[in-house]
């Protein structure tokens, strides 16, 4: 089945609008519902923002996004060559606390978990990170 690839050699936050377009176009070709597209866009924004701001510390860096159907699931995969970091181990923030008792930020990983069904972190052979996000049972 079809996979859609986007590779940006020197990605920065300015590329996020283009990345959103890429996700919207590939999910359209995969005939995914608009609700799922929205979830995938939102997860993508967080995953890529974390790569760029934390992984590459706001310097331009190599990012690859792969989106594909796998049986009944949709898989979106984010790859970088930054230092290895496993975000799946982050504890869930307490979102019931008043804002002035919360630290600023710390919500990106929480949002990813909320928008997709499973998040897997892997270290590719060449190092860096691969974050695999799975939306389950969305295809007939």
């Amino acid at each position, binding site marked *: 089945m079809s996979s859609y690839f986007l590779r940006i050699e020197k990605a920065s*936050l300015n590329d*996020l*609008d283009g990345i*959103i377009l890429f996700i919207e176009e590939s999910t359209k070709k995969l005939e995914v519902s608009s609700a799922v597209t*929205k979830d995938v*866009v*939102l997860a993508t*924004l*967080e995953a890529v*923002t974390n790569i760029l701001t934390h992984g590459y510390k706001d310097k331009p860096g190599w990012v690859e996004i792969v989106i594909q159907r796998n049986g009944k699931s949709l898989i979106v995969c984010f790859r970088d060559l930054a230092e290895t970091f496993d975000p799946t181990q982050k504890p869930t923030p307490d*979102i*019931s*606390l*008043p*804002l*002035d008792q*919360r630290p*600023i*930020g710390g*919500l*990106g990983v*929480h*949002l990813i978990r*909320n*928008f997709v069904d499973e998040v897997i972190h892997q270290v590719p052979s060449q190092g860096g990170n691969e974050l695999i996000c799975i939306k389950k049972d969305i295809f007939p």
Partner: protein
Amino acid sequence: MEINLSQEQGKVSVSVFKVKGNITSEVGLQEKAKEVHDAGIHHILLDLSEVPYMSSAGLRALHYIFSLLRAHEESDQATKAGIAAGTYLSANLKLYKPNKHVTEVLKTAGYDMFLEIHTDYKKAIASF
């Protein structure tokens, strides 16, 4: 992302930030809020009607602006009680017409509990 500023007069002076495009960075919003705040305006309505998507960078900006304006709240009995009960809504920062994607991000982060969401522009200005 583009931010256009305008000023409305209700019971108080309200600075309206009209954002166009995806909010994927906190920097622009925070800078503009700081300028307006330093110029003496402590009430901001964020018009999100033309924002397709907002990431957690937007949440960071909201949190920052919320805290910036917080110092100017009139801390009457009702406010204090609200804070204690966790039912406090900011009187200084309010949102106008976020779409359903943006609303979902606000809810997932638990920010909808602290920020009023308006869908009628005149009522929004009058509510400050």
